[in-house]
């Protein structure tokens, strides 16, 4: 409860400061008045988009489907890749270089490649979203695996664990804190890639965002940002945070100060 209140106060304060800045700017015109968005305006746009025109409802449902699939794939593929890189030296030296080489490649470059591979459509978008999230998961998982206390692996080996089971029962549980960070980042970068990918014009929040930008509806841009942020927060507190609390308290890491 205290936490929730703290959080609400924090966000309410930000909101107010922003609106004040907006109004001051309207009067003194320090910055572009067309482009400076207002948080109240954003709330209005949210209302209109969900309850009047319905464009946000539709765009959101499309984007959610894509992020859900893309994120899931990114986490699975990223985790597998990370495990392989963490375990096998040869893979780390070859495939690892490739991962490092590819991870800086931006979505705008992947997009045309995805089109060539999958045609223009949902598959291409999901491909780009998956790529967007995979590397963060991969690198975090890799480091998680490399950081497992050797004694735990050794102990498990003497109990007959090896190969897949050793990975599954020891290395993965031991890397959960790292994996969690990987998942958080995969989520975030999946969204970013999604926004970039949706520009090609098959709907979704990304397209709406671009259109809103092109026609100076900065309030709607902010409204979409808010939607993404709120979904991020919901997932954070329903999923990631729960897992983290659980893991950290089990491991006795709760009170690190």
């Amino acid at each position, binding site marked *: 409860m205290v936490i929730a209140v703290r959080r609400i106060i924090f966000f309410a304060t930000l909101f107010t400061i922003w609106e004040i800045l907006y109004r001051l700017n309207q009067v003194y015109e320090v910055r572009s008045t067309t482009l400076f968005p207002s948080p109240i305006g954003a709330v209005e746009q949210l209302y209109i988009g969900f309850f009047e025109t319905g464009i946000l409802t539709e765009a959101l449902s499309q984007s959610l489907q894509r992020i859900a699939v893309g994120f899931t794939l990114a986490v699975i593929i990223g985790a597998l890749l990370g495990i392989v890189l963490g375990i096998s030296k040869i893979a780390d030296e070859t495939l690892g270089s490739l991962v490092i080489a590819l991870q800086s490649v931006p979505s705008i470059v992947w997009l045309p490649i995805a089109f060539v591979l999958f045609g223009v459509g949902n598959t291409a978008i999901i491909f780009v979203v998956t790529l967007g999230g995979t590397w963060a998961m991969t690198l975090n998982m890799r480091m998680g695996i490399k950081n497992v206390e050797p004694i735990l692996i050794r102990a498990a*080996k003497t109990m*007959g*664990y090896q190969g897949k089971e050793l990975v599954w029962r020891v290395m993965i549980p031991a890397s959960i804190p790292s994996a969690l960070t990987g998942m958080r980042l995969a989520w975030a970068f999946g969204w970013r890639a999604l926004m970039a990918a949706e520009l090609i014009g098959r709907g979704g929040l990304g397209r709406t965002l671009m259109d809103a930008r092109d026609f100076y509806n900065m309030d709607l841009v902010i409204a979409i940002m808010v939607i993404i942020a709120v979904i991020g927060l919901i997932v954070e507190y329903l999923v990631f945070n729960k897992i983290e609390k659980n893991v950290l308290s*089990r*491991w*006795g890491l709760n009170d690190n100060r």
Partner: protein
Amino acid sequence: MQSVSIKNVEKTFSNTKELGSFTVFDDISLNIQEGEFVSLLGPSGCGKSTLLNIIAGLDKATKGTIYVGDHLVNGPGSDRGVVFQEAALMPWLTVLDNVTFALKKKLPKQEAKKRAEEYLKLVHLSRFLDSYPYELSGGMKQRVSIARALAMDPDILLMDEPFGALDEQTRSMLHKELHDIWEKTQKTIIFVTHNIRESILLSDRIVLMGTRPGGIREVYPVSLDRPRDTSSTGFIQLEKEINSVLAKEIDKVMKEEIGDGYSR
């Protein structure tokens, strides 16, 4: 059960930048019979844990071979249960789960649980079945780790100072339990300890290791009748003998440290 035979084993760590390569011991040979209880004694850092790890298959000897029965050791296996010097518990598992974790490969779930509970009772941890490792005291962790190895019921038990962090009462209670288990199941046990009494109390043979250079100094067969009496003359005699040899080893190190033999 299984015999263990160690043939001309050498261990050198070559990754150490500071010391160049560091040879812990260079030619250890030892035959341990089926069902024998052997203790390893020796000054800190002489390579007891290293040797145990090599027998467990966790480290590779730089030279030489180890056989368990007829099999060349080239990796760990659940025929050799290990109690590590550190407790080595999985931090994400409860006490009970840490023990069943070791049994899951062998037993069905229910049975594993039953057996785990049984051995945790043996080490007086019934009240802490659902605690996580960080909630345990040092001695409690060590007891979990002992319960885990015993519950696994391996042919060969490798124990690295298992009772080091326990009070003397718990320790002697566990001496009795370990002795009973050993007698009943005829396990082969290799037992590292710093406690000379403990080693005389439990073992068939005591292997005394030294350092700089590392290796086996003496092997003492213990022919006293069991249960052994710590105040018997044979016992005290042997204790003194071992003590004096060990003292010489330590003296040597001390001279090296303080005298001119070694300079930086």
